[in-house]
């Protein structure tokens, strides 16, 4: 405090003297390599808290500087910060500064749990995605930015629905019955995933405008994440939004428009091919043994054509009613959507206040039936320095998103993605008079045109995410930070079906209102001291509390007189009402003690003691420690490889918890159960387990960070083994006890793997630059323990859990091909002999699994003068899966749905070697043979491996000679694409197979909303 007073006093003194003796400092800040000016570089006189920002050409001016000795500090993003001493007096000359580009990132600050450190001090494993990696990349969501960009983070799209959800796994699947979603923290606010819409695929991270993101850090190993204790077992994702910097106000604006289409469509046969196929099936079933040149198929063709004419009706454009329709239902259901985005941000500030404010609006049309996503976001990030010891900061995000969704993910007759498979080409949406065709596959009310026009599924979400923090530095070596974070979310689900779409109810409207009130607060004290210049000691101690309360309530009304009014008040009768709420609370204390010797040897201990309302009364608190160390070999005297700038080995071991065990799983509970004669019933449905606790992850990690050739090559390697034990399982109880099971901590899963990150700056000259980046992760998953040592669902084809096997094991009989003699399907039995009736229990083999073993991404940026091209590829190898809806409904004509083109390679006469059996009228057509339609075999399991050109961006920076004329600081135009090309053997919509955000098997997919590809162009302006 004394110091503060002194400083203020000094300021006054200087100010008083200023009248007589001041000077103006001026000069130019330039790039040491290119010689070009560095616009917006921050030039600052440390002692005076006074500075200015360089202009477009790097020129700067600081007026009214009192005579004296100062430190001049010049900084800019992407450059090493420059400092020099300065004596201001009458002899002061122009001061030009050359900044050294900061090629590598060792000096970069990495955001960690409750703090930030320089990368060289890291002892744990953290992957960072930072502004420069994602600048100019237009993706809708935070998770998409992570896809392929952080080694060891597996991100899969679960829906192409704009605004849809992702499955995110950090270092594999560590749980079976509890969630494996990472903990997401945005600017210190822990985000709740409770109470999401049931109308369509969505995610709470939709609140964040990706344009506002400064960096995303993924805390992967226990050393990095243990400070989040019981919430950290699935990893932690820290999202940091942009902050202002002292200097002139910078305005960034950008406008973008584009179009979206489905990335891949599936090939189905035409009506004529369909008739031909059915005629062959009919002929075979009537005794034919070969369809060769001499066989007269026409009579059979006529029968089926006439049957289809009567079953589906004639093509409405066929004047004499003799032609079948040939509808491409994919074209009808999926059509081009338009996307547009507008963003503007302002940032700047002075020595006391810095701010970043922004607003963004996005409207993205999906491809399926009017699906649409809009987001309007407003962000305010302000940091205020109060005196020299206190800093207050607020980060506030207000956003509203709306989604017009469609139902998806299952064999539902009213969901557009499955309808694209369920409607045969002979069917058609509209009659010639424009009315709905009532003869679509499942009748009028599920005619896709009716689903398009008579069904609404709207989701409106309001987000308020805010953080307020105060940072107090009583001494230069100590700080105290208090933080309050709120994450409020209101979701309104509205589903309307007109009387045409829901004739049984004469139309209905259902409405659900969902609220999340999620609050966290923490206090952290941090102290650091250096002794004898070499002993660096730092300690962080803190406490935290979080409460996540959510509720939902809603109602439904049936009976509309027409399409005039679509509000509840217009319904004839209220049918149902519901309302529930949920809550959990967590309190924790944590400590992080760090020591390093001369920035050469590092040691860090983290401990967190967490109590959770979910844990059993006798096991309320858990302790989660980790220890880690690092050795910067390159700092040793004996290390004299000059081309190596940095070589550091890291090792860590620790435990974390997964508290996602169900809010009341440990309690003995009576729950609402039915009703009788107007009285609601309750029944004991859960026995108390006072010992029920978290699932525990123990992880060992060894890593190596490297930087070579003056920062031209840098990256990291990590190898880890993570064992998740105490997994939640229901232990069966005798049925006569009235309870089926009790939830206990049993079971163990292991994930192990190797991760590598590699970055290179191949060329960096004034006009030409070329850089590449590459990361990959190899991983394996294995179940180690299950209740009573018994495999679970041992014979299950897709959801078996077996000790020693990965989750997602696929067990099916081996496909033996088509019998060339008679066109029958054949399989192998367990002994390797041909069988026509494979039994799942005895003939299935351990085939493949749904675990992707090799995932990652690579990209390269080439720029010449103002033109730059950036391509980023993302890949996944090793996952195998079964496309359920496609398999059961589009390979045989049992239900007269679309038939995929694999039926074209079919057996017709003895001697034919084909992929597909002979044509059939139904899967059960073959005598003495299993039903081809439903018999799972290796034939129906496909490799989902893919390489995808995720982003391709071409940007042109308009030269300053032009921008100067039109009066803007910078201007660029760009054209880009998302998901432009995918190389894969997967024949269905999308090789990113993830059944849901919590799918642990990864081996089945049912009619999900296909991924989309986007082309767009935009313009970016800086003022």
């Amino acid at each position, binding site marked *: 405090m004394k110091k503060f007073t002194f400083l203020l006093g000094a300021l006054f003194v200087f100010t008083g003297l200023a009248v007589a003796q001041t000077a103006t400092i001026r000069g130019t800040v330039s790039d040491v390599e290119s010689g070009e000016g560095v616009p917006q570089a921050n030039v600052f006189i440390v002692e005076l808290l006074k500075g200015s920002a360089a202009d477009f050409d790097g020129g700067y001016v600081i007026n009214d500087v009192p005579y004296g000795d100062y430190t001049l500090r010049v900084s800019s993003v992407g450059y090493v910060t420059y400092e020099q001493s300065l004596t201001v007096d009458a002899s002061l000359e122009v001061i030009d500064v050359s900044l050294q580009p900061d090629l590598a990132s060792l000096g970069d600050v990495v955001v960690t749990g409750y703090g930030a450190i320089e990368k060289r001090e890291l002892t744990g494993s953290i992957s960072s995605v930072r502004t420069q990696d994602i600048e100019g990349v237009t993706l809708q969501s935070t998770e998409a930015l992570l896809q392929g960009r952080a080694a060891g983070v597996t991100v899969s799209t679960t829906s192409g629905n704009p605004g849809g959800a992702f499955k995110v796994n950090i270092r594999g699947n560590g749980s079976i019955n509890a969630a494996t979603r990472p903990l997401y923290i945005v600017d210190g606010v822990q985000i709740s995933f409770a109470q999401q819409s049931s109308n369509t695929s969505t995610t709470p991270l939709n609140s964040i405008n990706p344009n506002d993101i400064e960096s995303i850090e993924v805390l992967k190993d226990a050393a990095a994440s243990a400070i989040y204790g019981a919430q950290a077992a699935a990893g932690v994702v820290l999202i940091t939004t942009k902050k202002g910097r002292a200097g002139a106000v910078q305005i960034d604006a950008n406008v973008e428009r584009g179009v979206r289409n489905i990335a891949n469509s599936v090939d189905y046969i035409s009506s004529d091919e369909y008739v031909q196929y059915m005629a062959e099936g009919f002929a075979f079933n009537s005794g034919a043994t070969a369809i060769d040149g001499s066989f007269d198929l026409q009579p059979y063709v006529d029968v089926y054509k006439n049957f289809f004419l009567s079953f589906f009706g004639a093509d409405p454009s066929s004047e004499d009613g003799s032609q079948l329709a040939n509808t491409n239902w994919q074209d009808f259901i999926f059509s081009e959507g338009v996307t547009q985005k507008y963003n503007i941000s302002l940032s700047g500030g002075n020595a006391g206040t810095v701010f970043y404010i922004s607003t963004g609006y996005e409207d993205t049309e999906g491809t399926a039936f009017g699906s649409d996503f809009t987001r309007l976001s407003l962000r305010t990030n302000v940091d205020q320095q109060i005196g020299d010891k206190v800093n207050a900061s607020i980060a506030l995000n207000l956003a509203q998103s709306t989604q017009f969704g469609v139902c998806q993910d299952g064999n539902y007759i009213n969901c557009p993605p499955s309808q694209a498979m369920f409607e045969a080409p002979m069917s058609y949406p509209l009659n010639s008079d424009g009315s709905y065709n009532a003869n679509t596959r499942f009748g009028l009310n599920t005619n896709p045109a009716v689903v398009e026009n008579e069904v609404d599924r709207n989701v409106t979400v309001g987000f308020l995410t805010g953080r307020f923090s105060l940072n107090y530095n009583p001494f230069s070596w100590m700080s105290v930070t208090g933080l309050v974070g709120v994450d409020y979310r209101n979701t309104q689900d509205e589903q309307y079906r007109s009387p045409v779409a829901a004739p049984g109810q004469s139309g209905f409207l259902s409405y659900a209102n969902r609220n999340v009130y999620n609050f966290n607060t923490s206090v952290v004290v941090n102290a650091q001291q250096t002794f004898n210049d070499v002993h660096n000691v730092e300690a962080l101690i803190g406490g935290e509390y979080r409460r996540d309360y959510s*509720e939902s309530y809603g109602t439904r009304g049936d009976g509309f007189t027409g399409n005039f009014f679509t509000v509840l008040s217009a319904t004839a009768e209220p049918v149902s009402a519901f309302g529930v709420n949920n809550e959990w609370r967590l309190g*924790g204390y944590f400590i992080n003690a760090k020591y390093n010797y001369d920035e050469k040897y590092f040691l860090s201990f983290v401990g967190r003691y967490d109590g959770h309302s979910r844990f059993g009364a006798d096991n309320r608190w858990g302790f989660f420690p980790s220890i880690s160390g690092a050795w910067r070999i390159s700092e040793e005297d004996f290390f004299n490889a000059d081309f190596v700038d940095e070589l550091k080995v890291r090792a860590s071991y620790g435990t974390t918890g997964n508290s996602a065990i169900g809010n009341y799983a440990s309690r003995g509970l009576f729950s609402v*159960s*039915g009703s*009788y004669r107007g009285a*609601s019933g309750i029944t004991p449905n859960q*026995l108390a387990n006072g010992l029920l606790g978290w699932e525990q992850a123990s992880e060992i990690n060894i890593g190596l960070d490297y930087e070579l050739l003056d920062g031209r090559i840098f990256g990291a390697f990590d190898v880890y083994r993570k064992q998740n034990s105490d997994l939640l399982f229901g232990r069966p109880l*005798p049925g*006569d006890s009235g309870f089926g099971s009790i939830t206990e901590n049993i079971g163990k899963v292991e994930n192990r793997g190797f991760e590598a990150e590699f970055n290179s700056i191949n060329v960096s000259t004034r006009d030409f630059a070329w850089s590449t980046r590459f990361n990959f992760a190899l991983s394996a998953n294995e179940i180690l323990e299950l209740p009573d040592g018994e495999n679970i669902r041992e014979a299950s084809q897709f959801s078996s859990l077996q000790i020693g096997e990965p989750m997602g094991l696929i067990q099916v009989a081996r496909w033996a091909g088509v019998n060339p003699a008679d066109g029958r399907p054949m399989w192998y039995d367990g002994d390797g002999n041909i069988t026509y009736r494979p039994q799942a229990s005895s003939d299935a083999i351990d085939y493949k699994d749904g675990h992707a073993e090799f995932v990652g991404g690579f990209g390269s940026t080439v720029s010449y003068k103002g033109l730059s091209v950036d391509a980023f590829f993302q890949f996944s190898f090793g996952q195998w899966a079964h496309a359920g809806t496609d398999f059961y409904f589009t390979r045989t004509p049992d239900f007269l749905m679309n038939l995929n083109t694999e039926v074209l390679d079919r057996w017709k006469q003895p001697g034919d070697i084909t992929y597909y059996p002979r044509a059939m009228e139904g899967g059960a057509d073959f005598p003495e043979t299993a039903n081809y339609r439903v018999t799972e075999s290796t034939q129906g399991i496909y490799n989902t491996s893919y390489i995808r050109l995720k982003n391709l961006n071409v940007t042109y920076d308009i030269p300053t000679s032009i921008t100067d004329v039109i009066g803007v600081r910078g201007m660029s135009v760009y054209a880009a694409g998302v998901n432009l090309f995918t190389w894969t053997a997967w024949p269905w919509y999308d090789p990113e197979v993830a059944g849901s955000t919590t799918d642990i098997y990864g081996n089945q997919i049912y009619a999900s909303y296909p991924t989309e590809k986007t082309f767009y162009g935009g313009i970016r302006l800086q003022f």
Partner: protein
Amino acid sequence: MNVLKQSEHNMKKLFIALLSVGFLASCTEVLEDVEPSTSVSFEAALTSPEAVDAIRASMYSKMRGSFDFTTEYFIGPAALADLTSNRPGSSRFQGLNEAVGTNGTTHIGSFGGYEVIQEANLLINGIADGVLDQATLDRYRGEAYAIRAFVNHRMAATYGYEPGTAAASSWDLSIILRQEATLDLAQAEPLPRSTISEVYAAIKSDIAQAKTLLAGVNGDNGYATEAFVEGVAARVHLYAGEYSQAAAAAEAAISKSGRALVATEEGVASMFRGKNPEALLELVIDPNTEPIAGSNTNSGPVAYTSDQWVAQVPTNQLVTKYEAGDWRVAGWHGDCITEQSVGATANGCETVNDLGVSITKFNGWKGNLSQDLTYMRIGEMYLILAEATAKASNNPSAGVPYLEELRTARGAGAVPAEATANMKAFEDFILDERVRELSVEGHRFFDLKRLERDIPNSDGGIKMRKDSYRLLSPFGIGAQNVNPLLVENPGYDVAE
């Protein structure tokens, strides 16, 4: 200057406040003070009168909601014997019709009864003292004893033999008796099976308790009443071969119910198309909010017989047992159509019976494929009276008056002379009359089993011989894995 100083000072205060909040808030009490919205703790449930009312509601709701004690209870014994068969194209209960391998008796396993018993046990011995006034508590406990006796008896008939039968002398294990509420993990521990005599003793003890507690309670047959308890007693004694007690109980059931046989053609035809005038226990349903057997449209008895699937259709073994003019033929059977679903049709009944009819005792008269479910009615009591009276006195003629009273009420003629020629002939006639009167009301298979008869097929052939091990349901490998004390019924050895 002062402003800055002041604000810094305030900041310090704020920090101290924040620190205290941060460090003190995280105490255990805060973490424990979290309650679910649709559940309550055991303590709360067993100490509040509203919660006790809700447990009672759940007892009946569970019975009505379980497949075991609805569709399987009513139609299973008919389908497993010779009274119904699956209509071509429908497969529900086809396993019972065919009874191949262990398919069959497995399907009438009634383990789900223990969920009902859990609720009964809570009412009997889980409620804290003083929560309810004594009269209400007595009534609830009486109902719980009655329901427990009823459910245990059905399970005993499924998993064990009847007392006194030849088979019982060589295999005397019956069900697991769960007589205590399960309130914690220790109480959920495995229990062994009890013997037939232990189980029957327990059931009779429950009946005695229920009779005392429900004395004079007969107003509302939507709950267990004194008359219902007598009806349960009549059944239990009949199965136990205690004929005079069975007859006395049946007589008491009729008189205490205050009900009489429906005795007009119109009355018989409408008997199952509204509140059943003969019902001793009739569980009530709200068709809009309450499902039967989980789903009315998929799993309820209406969906199985007269609507939706029209899956189990009467066989000739059933429809040819009636004489001309018997009101029950036209009254309880109907066209082979789905009764409720507009425009839907079914056909193929004619391939199962010569009349081409379906059974319409379950017709969905309340809408939404649902109706109140009659678990016991006085028609059955007359049949018990007839059988038990004759057997008690070893004189067929002694049973005839009750039979004729019933038959007259149904428009059927006098009991033919050959039916009284000897006890065997009389028992044959009683079995036939029970088919005519009680088809798809839950009796056929169990009547044949208790009387040690072969189980016939729908074509009249033999499906299971009377000494077949398959008359008893297996508990299954799953139940044995969880309960090492559980001895499987003979014939269902694990090694196959």
